[in-house]
């Protein structure tokens, strides 16, 4: 074979497949940019996990195969246990979040607009904030026993601070120039708040909201595994006692899914209310 033939062979080998990638690459790029792309890694992990477990590379007393976990989910769904426990956990999370979140939002707004309110309450909040809320668990058990109110209290305490701090900060950092503009255009105080101050604080409030959702699940998991007689955490702890590895893993996966769900809802809210924000204007173009 002569040199010229090799060169020819190379060029033809490279020239031939040029057309198909032109069609595949944009499709791939579109797929990677779409929401579906965020599921690639979780699904891949699941497949690897299943494969490794099936191949017998993982001892059954360390990790159960995903298929076993799904079996457990199906079994518990049929018995009604799963739905009950998820419902109870979601209820605790929801009530705790509603109480802590609304109080935090109210105080954030109040202290954001009022120096007096800030002077009166902010220092106290900052002190309480520095106590890890899970350090309160023994005290909370003494106060509430292992009733639902104990978990609700812990969740409310946990979500309070991220929402409070970010609401407060959001209101305090509203563009002063816009506030002045609103004033000079004769906005009443209520209108100024509705048209300028609150929308300006919203991005920061959402940061607090999303952070609080994380704290909400974290607190609930710990509270349910330490002292509870129902809920996902309780389900995991009982399963541990009976060496039901699949149910333990199912509980952990449930927390992951519920956490993701809460975050997705928050992101959707964020995307609809902050559609004006340049960061959310994916398709906006410069004129």
């Amino acid at each position, binding site marked *: 074979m002569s040199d010229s033939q090799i060169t020819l062979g190379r060029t033809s080998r490279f020239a031939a497949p040029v057309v198909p990638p032109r069609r595949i690459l944009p499709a791939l790029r579109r797929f990677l940019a779409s929401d579906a792309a965020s599921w690639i890694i979780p699904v891949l992990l699941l497949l690897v996990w299943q494969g490794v477990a099936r191949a017998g590379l993982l001892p059954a007393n360390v990790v159960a195969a995903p298929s076993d976990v799904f079996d457990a989910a199906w079994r518990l769904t049929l018995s009604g246990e799963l739905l009950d426990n998820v419902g109870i956990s979601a209820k605790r999370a929801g009530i705790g979040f509603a109480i802590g979140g609304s109080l935090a939002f109210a105080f954030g707004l109040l202290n954001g*607009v*009022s120096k007096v*309110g800030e002077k009166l309450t902010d220092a106290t909040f900052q002190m309480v904030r520095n106590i890890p809320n899970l350090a309160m668990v023994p005290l909370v058990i003494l106060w509430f026993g292992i009733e639902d109110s104990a978990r609700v209290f812990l969740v409310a305490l946990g979500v309070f601070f991220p929402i409070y701090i970010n609401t407060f900060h959001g209101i305090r950092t509203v563009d002063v120039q816009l506030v*002045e503009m609103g*004033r000079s255009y004769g906005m*009443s105080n*209520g209108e100024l708040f509705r048209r300028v101050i609150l929308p300006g604080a919203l991005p920061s409030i959402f940061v607090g909201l999303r952070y609080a959702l994380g704290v909400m699940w974290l607190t609930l998991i710990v509270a349910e595994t330490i002292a509870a007689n129902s809920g996902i955490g309780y389900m995991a702890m009982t399963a541990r006692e009976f060496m039901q590895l699949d149910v333990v893993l199912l509980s952990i996966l449930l927390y992951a899914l519920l956490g993701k769900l809460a975050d997705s809802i928050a992101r959707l809210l964020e995307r609809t209310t902050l559609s004006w924000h340049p960061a959310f204007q994916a398709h*906006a*173009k410069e*004129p």
Partner: protein
Amino acid sequence: MVDDILVRAMLYAQLDAIDRRPPDEPDEAVDPLDDNRLPGGVALTLRALTKSFGANPVLHGIDLHVPAGQFLTIIGKSGCGKSTLLRILAGLDAPTAGEVLFDGRASQRSPHVSRLMFQEPRLLPWARVLGNVEVGLGARRNAPGADRRALAKLAEVGLERRAHDWPAVLSGGQKQRVALARALASKPNFLALDEPLGALDALTRIEMQALLESVWREEGFTAVLVTHDVTEAVMLGDRVVLIEDGIVKLEVDVPIARPRRRGSPQVAALEERILDHLFADGARLPITRFKAA
């Protein structure tokens, strides 16, 4: 001081939540938005106007009269107090001493509408272009027909097609045009302009000057423009006032017929005269003075 404004505004906002009065009732007496009303101008009289920030005096007794409908331009080096003066005229700051009269009456007792166009567009980023213009409608911004009025104003500045865009996607010049439409929406009798064209590129600025002049001629409001651009001052002003160290250093009428031509000998001569006053110490031309023969 800026912090004070915010704190005050927020305190008020908090009080307002408790005390829900119907907003802006006194405004209904004068109907600033009667669509057929031509706003006309209001005469401004400044008497011994003084302003100091702490022990730091900025304005020392300014006396000035601006007849109704006049376009006055104020020029001066940065830090001379011209923006402070404008903020007082627009009612954003209170003078330390002296007074500002509108058609001979104190500001609170005069029925005039005054608007300020800021150096920055100051558009609400969370409101569409149209919503931003509606802000300028004053008490009527929540009334039916607000969007129609706002759209008409937007058409005046040639941006009706961008009504439903977010401000973030507009260019700097377009943003200032929206700010102008907002300022004009309530048909002001007095429009204060605080270097609104300062941040625009040279070509956009010329365009905006022409737009400003045409709306002023159409609506007849009294205009006070603060600028550091001598050409702009001469091109737009009926009268140019030079402020230095907090006092009126020079007042020149501009007897040049409109529309004025940029670079015409009359404009150039007047510019030269003002620049000579501004740089009386000769700092303008460092080595030798050059003059076209």
